[in-house]
């Protein structure tokens, strides 16, 4: 069964965002991939081929674009896809230990799904939450920050019971007042997403 066969309205909507030309149609690649990934958790070879036909290119090109991003998966993921940031800040704060712990206790390696179908793991590059290292992201749902051994155990216990704890920061990530950098004159840096505004802390 093809995925888009009964979704012509959706496909037409995606195509309508791009110029009506061969190049324009190719640009629809990413939203189509996203669509499949969200629905099925990964993009299989059959889906790559299907998308290739839709946008008038080859499966090789689809795979090439797709494999450029760590957010698309070629293999099935678990119900909870745990993404551990392993870039420098998190590494300094213990992300390696966190990773080892997850891999050991869940008995799952990258590319695998744990026997109960719940967990899969992936190392990712900086998720931009270095101030709260080590951190992990579960699915697209949000950031779990300062994940030490205790917090990790609590999160895993909840997930095993299929009660996903609320993330510390839902995606898109907001920046709390404490998380903000302050300049020498006391001015906070950057603009706030949450409307916390500038001024001194």
């Amino acid at each position, binding site marked *: 069964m093809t995925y888009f066969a009964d979704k012509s309205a959706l496909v037409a909507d995606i195509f309508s965002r791009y110029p009506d030309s061969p190049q324009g149609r190719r640009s629809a690649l990413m939203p189509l991939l996203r669509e499949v990934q969200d629905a099925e958790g990964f993009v299989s070879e059959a889906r*790559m*081929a299907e998308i290739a036909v839709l946008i008038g290119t*080859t499966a*090789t090109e*689809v*795979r*090439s674009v797709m494999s*450029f991003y760590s957010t698309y998966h070629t293999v099935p993921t678990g119900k909870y896809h745990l993404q551990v940031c392993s870039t420098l800040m998190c590494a300094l704060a213990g992300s390696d230990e966190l990773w080892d712990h997850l891999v050991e206790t869940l008995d799952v390696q990258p590319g695998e799904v744990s026997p109960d179908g719940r967990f899969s793991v992936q190392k990712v590059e900086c998720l931009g939450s270095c101030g709260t290292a080590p951190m992990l992201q579960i699915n697209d749902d949000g950031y779990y920050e300062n994940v030490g051994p205790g917090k990790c155990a609590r999160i895993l216990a909840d997930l095993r019971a299929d009660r996903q704890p609320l993330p510390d920061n839902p995606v898109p990530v907001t920046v709390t007042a404490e998380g903000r950098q302050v300049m020498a004159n006391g001015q906070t840096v950057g603009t706030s997403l949450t409307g916390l505004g500038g001024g001194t802390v």
Partner: protein
Amino acid sequence: MKVTVDGHELDLPAGTSAIDAVFGAGGDVPYFCAHPYLSPVGACRMCLVESGSPRKNPDGSFVMEGEGDAAKPKIFWFPKPMASCTMQATEGMHIRTAKTSEVVAKAQAGMMEFTLLNHPLDCPTCDKGGACELQDRAFEYGYGASRFGFDRRHADKHYPLSDFVILDQERCIHCKRCVRYFEEVPGQEVLDFIERGGHTFIDTEEGGLPLGFQGNITDICPVGALLDNVARFRGRNWEYDHTPTTCTLCSVGCSITADARNGRLERVVARENRDVNEAWICDAGRFGHPFASEERLTTPLIRNEDGQLVPATWDEAITAINRGLAGLSLADLGLFTGSEATLEEGAALEALADVLQTRHVDHSPRQAVDIAPTATLTDVAQADFVAVIGADLGEEAPVLELRILEMLRGGLLPPEFAHGTAIADLRLVERPARQPERLAVIGAESRLWEHAGHRISANGRDALARLTRPDTDALKAVGEALTKAERPVLVLGADALNGASGSFAATLSDLAGRTGAKVMAIPAGPNSRGLSALNLVPRAGGLGLDRLSEVPAAFISRLNPGLRARGFTVVHDTHLTATAQLADVVLPAVTNYEKRGTTVNLEGRLLPLNPAAIQAGEAADLIRTLTALAEALGVKAPVRGLRGAQTLLASRLGLKLDSLPAGGVIHRLPRAHTAPAQPHTPRLWTERMVRRDQDWVDRIADLTQGGWTLPVAPTAPQPGGDD
């Protein structure tokens, strides 16, 4: 446009890239990703130079430097080295290469260090060793040492992309040449970079590379990452005898280099010929050569009393022929040859036929009509409309297909400089826009079909007639496009030419005349154009190859109709074919890889053949074999050697064949001789061209049991020495 390279000023045409400016000045820049027939992308960062340009004041005058008469426009240098392959040289530009700039030398050495960061350096076992850009450039431009002490990344080795192409992912330096080649040249995007960053590798998701033009990536890969699996592990570059010659599997006549080692033809690679194949050849030409060294006939065979073919000497064979033909009138001996025979061989055959007064002369395959070509391959590439009628180019003339695809992307031919084809033609772009509306394919479905804007299923035989009197809207559209086009070309293939009658030529010239189209008809065989110009067709009352079984006696060279003549039959061939097994005497022949001579391609271009060093025992070419045949018949052979054949051709066809330029030369041959012919289906890959499954065990057994001769010093006493 004046450009100064390392202090030398030179004059260059506008649009020249900086890398070509340097080569134009006789300088050198190392490069990996640039390729004359591919878009420049600046992927390898090796071709760095320092560059600077004069700058103008708001009033239009140059910013000057110096006082009075010594004042010169001040050169503003880019703050960092630039990739010269993607930079256009501009008026007044100054360029400094590693020769004069320490910055460049250091940058290139650093780049080299970086490229070698993860490279496995298996030069001692790598097939590319000795012809590897990376090896050479690392030696010339590298530091000779690395500051990276950690372990190299490891990736898949011996990863088959197809039966013919093996990828070593570790050796890939990500120059993207192979990716660009598939996108830009055959228009099949089946290779791409997978993953990103330090893990990037080349792969295909299509389940393998398409057969047709895949082998070219093994030529253009600057390192040993993509290797020709037929030639892999069969020799090192410096061990091969490289023979520049011409491929005669089809009538395009691509320039190739035949690489032989220890008397075996081990590898065929493409050789640049701007007018014919540019830098490409087809897969049959590249991978189909093993037959030249496998199961060859090396001595004559004669049939003994028990009816068995047994090895014999040439003298015995001549005696056997003499005995077998005794009492036969010489005029009853039929002379037949395959269409890949050279012009010289054809001349010798024709001359002998004249002496014997035989009417049974033929070459095969051939067509019943002769359509003189008026288009060259360059005309095809630069046409603004091409109609392909009744042709399956994949089987008939593959590289012509590439030239048509070149036309679809604008027909940009890279300029030529004294240093050769432009290394980086800045007009070539990645993912070029194609204009499918410029191509019409009329006939059966073929590979070219998917690139064509006009696709018309038709019976090839009446396609031309229908095009002259269009009966459908689609055909009308093609007719209109032909009329509107300024440089249209008509390509005719076997389906259109098979069984064509006299009126065909008239219809065609009428259509061509009306539309101003140039014509390229694909000959039936590799050199049928040349052989038809000699009178190698059945003479009045003569029997052609299709009536071989009625001919009283025959000499058949390199043809395998699976029949024999009514009477005594002599077969001259490279292998013991079905026909040879029926013969009374079999004479060993040489392949076209081992001949010296001339062939005529589909444009009417004379192209030279040169002999590669292949062991073929006592095999002989057609000229020498005919001399032996004449001896058996008791007549004096009119042509006894290449020189004699060329002299004859000079007087008959006005050809000067002893001094052909390497790229060949177009020669309008006089009227061709034609006769009714059997329709034929062109097939590029013949059975014997497919290598039998021979695995390593067999190969090693081969080696140890003397199938190969190892290069050992001769046992004869060496001259000189102390003792």
